[in-house]
Each structure stands twice: as C-alpha cells, then as structure tokens.
C-alpha cells in the first residue's frame, strides 16, 4: 500500500481503541444513499517502476525541440545548484510560514527575495509573490483602483503593447467589479505618446505599460510616466525581470518613477514546464504598501533580541472589506521564489546583465540574418530579445514547415495584432547557439522557397 505505514496489528489495535469493528464503521455517518464502493473511472495502481516507464515514454514523445518562441515564457540556462537546493525536503515539503519560529528558513529567504526585487525594479516594497505575471498584472490594476484616492472612475489605461493574454485574464478577474480597461494605441510597435492627448481631462486610476512590450520593443517610459503623474494617474510597469538587469528600472522612469512594478518571474531560474508553475512579482512605492495584495515578510526581533523574520501586514491580506475592489488571494508561489532567489544569488547583477546582453545579441543575429531573405523584414527597433518578423505570406506556413523539423519558429501575431499583417514574434535567448540560429535561418529560407508568396 504505497505511503500507508499501518500494519494489520496497528489497524486492529487502533480500531479496538476507538471501539469500532472495522474501518467501514468509521464512515457510518455518511448516508447510505451517498456511499460509493468503487471508482471505475480510475485505472489500477502502478508501481513506481511502471509509472516511471510510462512517464519516460510520454516525455520522449515531446522532447528534442529547439525553441525560438518567447511571448511571455523564456528558455534560459538554469544552473544545477538552483533546483538541487530548492527541492530539498525542508523547502519542498514545508508549509506556509505561519508558525514563524518553525519557518525561519523560508521567511529569511523571502525577505532576501523581496530585497532583490526592490533592487531590480528600483521601487521600495515587494511582496512574497503572486501566482504569475498575468494575475500580478490584474492585481496591480485592482490595487491602483483601490489606492488612487483622487480617482473615482475605476478606469485604467492599458497600452496595446501589454501582453494580450494578461489583458484577457485581467478582464476575467475584474469584470465582476465594474472596472474598465481602456486601450492606448501603438505606433511603430511602441505606445503612441502623441495618442495620449485624446485622454486628457478624463479620470483614470492608472496607466499600464509593459517593458519590453509584447512585441519585444523597448518603451520610452519616461515621457509616458510624467504624462500620467501630471494627471494624478498611477503608473504600473509590467516588466521582464531579466531585462531589468540591463534596462532602466521602473523606479527611475520619468521624474518620480513608476508606482507599481509587476511581471512574470519565470526568466529567473524557472523552467518552461508547459507554462507553470511560475510566479508573479509585485513591488511598489512605500506610500502604497498597505494596498499591496499577497503575503509580505518583515524583519523583527525575538524576546532575546535576536533578528528574526515573520509574515506581516496580514490584516490587509486576509481582511474582507466591502470596499470597491477586493482580492481573495492568499497564497504565494513559495517554491518558485526559492528557486528564483537562489538563481539571482548565483548569477548576481553582472551575470544577469551578461545573460540579457547575450539574448539581445542572439536575437539581433537572428533578425539580421532573416532580414536578408526576400519577402522578410524586421518591423521594429530597438528591441530587447524578441523581434517582429513581417512576411509576405502567412506566418503559419513557416511555423508548420519548421515545426516538422522540430523547430519552434516563433509566435504567430495575426490573431492579436492583425494590423501587423502576417507577422511572427521570434526570440533567440542565450540558450540558442550560433549553430541553432544557422539551422533556423536555413530552414526558414528553405520554407520560403518552397511556399508561394501570398
């Protein structure tokens, strides 16, 4: 019986102690009509060896793919020490650190994580993480609506450069609360600063940018930040944390910096793993810290004056207010934060910067090579580590052709950005070698020759 330690003697003695004749007796309070005797929909048990063979077989079906796909999840090299240490039983099987004296490992780690995130973003207070980048974005919008006392509209400006799935998830989460997202158009792949004029005089709680944008371009965040602040609009920056090792931090945007930074933490030591588990991060200005959702760890002293760490500001987290917008979130992505903190410690600022530069260089190498092919052009610049490739024929045909060679060509932008025509978002991280890039370009050229121009 896997994982059940009881011997027959144990069972007999325990039943005797309870005064029951069999374990079935213990369920006598369940009405007879509700009792279930069997689970026909569940297969027979497998031994550990059998499930190992099964899972290896299924994994092999999926392996050996070379990816040039980003669009919100990125392949980076993760040093061996990260998951070796993160999956130690004392981290892996620990509970939420409610009994602080029994959880100083987790609590101190989260405190270190919070510190690192304030450093990357240039803002003051980080929480202990949220579920992922999309829900962090939704929570940031809710937080801005709660926190912005000068705004009553419940309307939030969101650049079209923000990940379309993030916007979709935010809609699903906020629609029950009467909050409205209003889109700011793009020009040349970035937020159109001139287009902001149309919103002058209107009441918005917040303005959201993504850095780099979903299209890979780098926003000129200073002007937009100042425009918003002059109108009492809070600024939310959804930023790729790896890019922040290189790009200007949201805390330094414009005159006063952004108010809230959030985003997807996956690039920091979290494997792609078909989309999860990842973690969302959120960092804010000191003035807004009491509005921040999720758990927060604080330093304090014990009764002997020793430094220790504990969950704090919990009244906000669990309190159910009848105020405008509420969140029911009560978990963080503890294990992922553990890995990310170890990863950031191993790489440090210089290491992350080199990874960021290597990603940029690889994508540039790829983009430059593709631009030489007839019928192919690179749409925008400057970009960080993703570029928009425009084609004279449907992107899907290239994706399929390269897919049959086990190359993930990129993300088809036609569904979410039809104004770009036939376009592919490509990404070459530091995980791609120049051989990989060469093979991609050759396969692309080949596919272009074989298919017809549209």
């Amino acid at each position: 019986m896997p994982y059940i330690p009881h011997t027959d003697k144990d069972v007999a003695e325990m039943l005797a102690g309870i005064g029951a004749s069999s374990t079935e007796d213990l369920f006598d309070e369940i009405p007879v009509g509700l009792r279930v005797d069997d689970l026909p929909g569940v297969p027979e048990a497998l031994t550990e060896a059998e499930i190992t063979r099964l899972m290896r077989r299924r994994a092999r079906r999926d392996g050996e793919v070379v990816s040039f796909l980003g669009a919100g999840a990125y392949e980076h090299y993760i040093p061996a020490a990260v998951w070796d240490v993160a999956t130690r039983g004392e981290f892996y099987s620990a509970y939420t650190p409610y009994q602080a004296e029994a959880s100083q490992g987790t609590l101190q780690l989260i405190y270190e994580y919070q510190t690192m995130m304030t450093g990357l973003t240039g803002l003051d207070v980080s929480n202990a993480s949220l579920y992922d980048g999309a829900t962090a974005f939704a929570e940031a919008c809710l937080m801005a609506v709660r926190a912005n006392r000068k705004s009553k509209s419940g309307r939030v400006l969101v650049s079209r450069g923000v990940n379309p799935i993030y916007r979709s998830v935010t809609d699903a989460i906020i629609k029950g609360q009467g909050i409205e997202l209003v889109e700011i158009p793009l020009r040349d792949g970035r937020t159109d600063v001139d287009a902001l004029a149309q919103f002058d005089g209107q009441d918005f709680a917040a303005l959201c940018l993504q850095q780099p944008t979903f299209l890979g371009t780098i926003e000129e965040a200073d002007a937009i930040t100042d425009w918003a602040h002059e109108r009492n609009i809070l600024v939310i920056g959804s930023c790729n944390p790896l890019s922040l090792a290189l790009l200007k931090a949201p805390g330094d945007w414009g005159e006063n910096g952004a108010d809230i930074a959030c985003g997807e933490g996956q690039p920091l030591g979290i494997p792609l793993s078909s989309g999860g588990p990842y973690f969302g991060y959120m960092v804010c200005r000191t003035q807004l810290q009491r509005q921040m959702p999720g758990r927060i760890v604080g330093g304090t002293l014990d009764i002997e004056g020793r430094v220790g760490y504990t969950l704090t500001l919990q009244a906000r987290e669990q309190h159910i207010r009848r105020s405008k917008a509420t969140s029911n979130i009560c978990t963080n992505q503890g294990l992922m934060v553990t890995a990310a903190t170890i990863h950031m410690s191993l790489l440090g600022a210089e290491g992350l910067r080199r990874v960021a530069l290597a990603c940029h260089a690889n994508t540039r190498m790829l983009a430059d090579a593709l631009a030489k092919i007839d019928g192919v052009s690179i749409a925008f610049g400057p970009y960080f580590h993703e570029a928009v490739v425009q084609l004279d024929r449907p992107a899907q045909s290239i994706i399929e052709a390269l897919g049959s060679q086990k190359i993930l060509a990129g993300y088809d932008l036609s569904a979410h950005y039809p104004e770009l025509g036939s376009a592919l978002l490509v990404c070459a991280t530091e995980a791609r070698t120049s051989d990989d890039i060469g093979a991609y370009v050759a396969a692309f050229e080949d596919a272009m020759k074989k298919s017809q121009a549209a």
Partner: protein
Amino acid sequence: MSEVPQNLRYTSDHEWVRLEDDGSVVVGITDHAQEALGELVYVEAPEAGQEYGKGDACVVVESVKAASDVYAPISGECSESNGALADEPERVNQSPYEDGWLVRLIPSDPAEMEELMDADAYAQFLIDSDG
C-alpha cells in the same frame, strides 16, 4: 472591567463621542474595543473635508491579526484626524478616551446625538452582550 467615562456618549459598535463647546464632535473607540482588538499597529484616518453619513466606515484600525472599520456615529464632515497616531498607534490602546482620539466631525444633524447611548446604557450593553 473596562472603563466607561460618564461625560461621553456611545454606540453599539463601541465608539465613544464627545460633544465639544464649538459644536464639533470628537470620536474614538472605547476601552472595551481597544482591549478586544489588541495592540494597534496602524490607523488609517480620513482627510479633512470627507463627509460621512451615520454608520459609514470612516476609520480603519489595524492590529496584527485584523483590520476593523470604525463607523461614523453621526453624520458629518471630518475637520481633522489625530495625526499623532501615524507614528504612535499605540496611543489608542494606552489612552482610548484622551490621546487616542481618532477624528473630529462637524455634525450635519445635531439631533442624531440623542440616538446615542449614555454611559450607563453602554455599560449595561457591555454586560448584556457579555463582552
């Protein structure tokens, strides 16, 4: 046994009210309330000029485990909040009726003062509801 000063009026939500000579009204929470909440760590009070109807939440008091609303005992406009509480929220625990006052309101309907309990009624209320 918690303290219930005679010169004040009270609500069933454990707020006290003191009518000042200038017609304004000072509001706080009672000794019973501060005892129940535990040590306060933060007080979120309104800015001057905010208006409240009787029973509207106007202040939030936060202890380690809970954040509680304090309700306006009468309708009115906030003229000031106790700024000292930003750095020393513990004043509410140490001196709930004096240094720990929360807000000053300009009442819009003086008749509402009559609806409040006097000290004896509040003391009885505490006994009846068993604290």
